[in-house]
């Protein structure tokens, strides 16, 4: 992360010869809650990756002999209406949630940032068209847009991810456009242009590096929102299809047994809450760590 000084003039000169990346890392680690968030996220990532080895039972195989058993030493989170172990399904469900969160936000960044940069740097009618489309999409609340898209695409986890990615794209268009406009007014971009750099090079070398900090913050917070969106879509039957485990669809099934088997709805919800909270803590911590104006924390 030791970029040449010319690309990072937004940050003040690093104190005690520290690189901006290192300083951000130091600030982030001092932020104990953010660190806790990162640890929780890491834990869930490991659980998702190692699910086949750490889940005590098969997440899909049904068993009539152990239907809706309350939590016990054998079944930590109890069993569901088909005799499946809730704990194992929560572990496997982390896959759908994290994948939906990370992949859809990565796609939204991949589509949104180039369009935003183009919009901000090109200006004129290109900017007008892109901005109006982003405005139009932002005028439909995120979840309603995602539900409508998923409904027309058809129920499947991939389609839910696509719907979330499209719904999250305009946020990143706006972010990149704003940063591009800000950068365009600075002397160093002016200088880069005066030296005869082609516009794409200016965008990649001189604008993009400055967008990365706010992008990291916004991206982390967007993952939190995307995880909730995936759970919501799966809850409505528009995401991961049963019997494949996902926290949202587990909650949907659990609602019918709220009186007899409350554990079925408690644990998947707690898992969603923990992951979303962890991403939000990380996002808030990153914001404090990467903001060059706040060196007091």
């Amino acid at each position, binding site marked *: 992360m030791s970029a040449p000084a010319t690309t990072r003039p937004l940050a003040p000169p690093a104190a005690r010869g520290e690189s901006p990346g290192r300083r951000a890392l130091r600030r982030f680690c001092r932020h104990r809650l953010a660190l806790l968030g990162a640890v929780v996220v890491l834990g869930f990532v490991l659980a998702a990756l190692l699910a086949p080895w750490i889940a005590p039972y098969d997440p899909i195989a049904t068993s009539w002999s152990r239907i809706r058993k309350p939590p016990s030493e054998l079944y930590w989170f109890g069993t569901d209406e088909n005799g499946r172990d809730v704990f194992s399904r929560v572990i496997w469900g982390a896959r759908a949630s994290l994948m939906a969160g990370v992949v859809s936000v990565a796609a939204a960044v991949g589509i949104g940032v180039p369009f935003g940069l183009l919009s901000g740097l090109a200006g004129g009618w290109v900017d007008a068209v892109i901005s109006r489309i982003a405005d139009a999409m932002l*005028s439909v*609340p*995120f979840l309603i847009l995602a539900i409508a898209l998923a409904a*027309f695409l058809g129920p499947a986890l991939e389609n839910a991810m696509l719907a979330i990615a499209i719904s999250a794209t305009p946020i990143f268009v706006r972010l990149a456009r704003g940063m591009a406009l800000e950068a365009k007014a600075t002397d160093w971009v002016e200088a880069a242009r005066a030296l005869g750099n082609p516009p794409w090079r200016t965008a990649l070398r001189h604008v993009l590096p400055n967008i990365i900090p706010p992008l990291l913050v916004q991206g982390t917070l967007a993952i939190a929102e995307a995880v909730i969106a995936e759970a*919501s879509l799966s809850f409505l039957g528009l995401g991961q299809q049963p019997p494949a485990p996902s926290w949202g669809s587990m909650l949907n099934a659990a609602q019918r047994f709220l009186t007899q088997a409350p554990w079925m*709805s408690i644990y998947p919800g707690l898992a969603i809450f923990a992951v979303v909270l962890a991403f939000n803590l990380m996002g808030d911590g990153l914001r404090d760590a990467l903001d060059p104006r706040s060196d007091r924390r």
Partner: protein
Amino acid sequence: MGLWLIRRLGQVVPTLLILSVLIFGLQQLMPGDPALILAGEERGDPQVLAEIRAELLLDRPLWEQYLAWLGRVLMGDFGFSWRIRLPVAQLILDKLPVTLQLGLMAFVIAVAIGVPAGIVSAVWKDRPADWVANGLALAGISTPNFWMGIMMILLFSVHLGWLPPSGYVPLAEDPLQSLATTIMPAFVLGGSIAGVLMRHTRAAMLTALAQDYVRTARAKGLPERLVIAKHALRNALIPVVTLGTIELGRLLAGAVLTEQIFTIPGFGKLIVDAVFNRDYPVVQGVVMATALIFVLLSLLADLLYMAINPRLRAA
């Protein structure tokens, strides 16, 4: 002011037009032939299929379909529900009062929690009260709406038996029972934006408390209570009012799952049922109506901002 309003409206119109193209375009994502869905039992009969296609203009070029659709939407005609054979506009208008009641109750709850919490946390910044308020706000933002609803049903309906777990009684029919059926969903909805409102209020209060006029007020010996209430708060509320208006629009999105959990026959349940029944005109109509409400709310937010900010009124 007049010129500003015209320019602002000039932004709204192209936004809504582009949105109409996008919403119309949703149809093109659909797998399968809508005529086949509509024909139902008679899907084998080419005669019936041809008639349906002609009626829905499915046999015409896309741009012609769009213009015909847009023309009808502009007249307030969102087409017919495929499922219930009622005009979509009528369905939406029927459900809107229910969601409006829920939304307003939620908003009152959100303001009653979020604004005082924001003030407390700004005034006692970096002290226990601030940590508690911040922690609660973060927890509220991180809890999925629908899970919160399920947990409240578990506590208040299943365990304590205080409130009905689902259903809805109109306000005009039995006000008390109506409140009993809507208080939990309103709390779920309101709680979700109380956290956001708290953060806005806190930030605005911190900015206001750092201003020169607050220092002047303190220097001339005003009691701290008056400094906070009369000098800082009144200025801090300006951005909070406008941001709060926009949050009202987000309540509509929250209502989707909340109404589903509590089986409340409102706007949100309408779109979910439409999704389940593959009733696409209703889905399109609800999305368009939501966007319209959202655009009008942000316009209202701008107007409010002008109205309550004396610095902008002169310009």
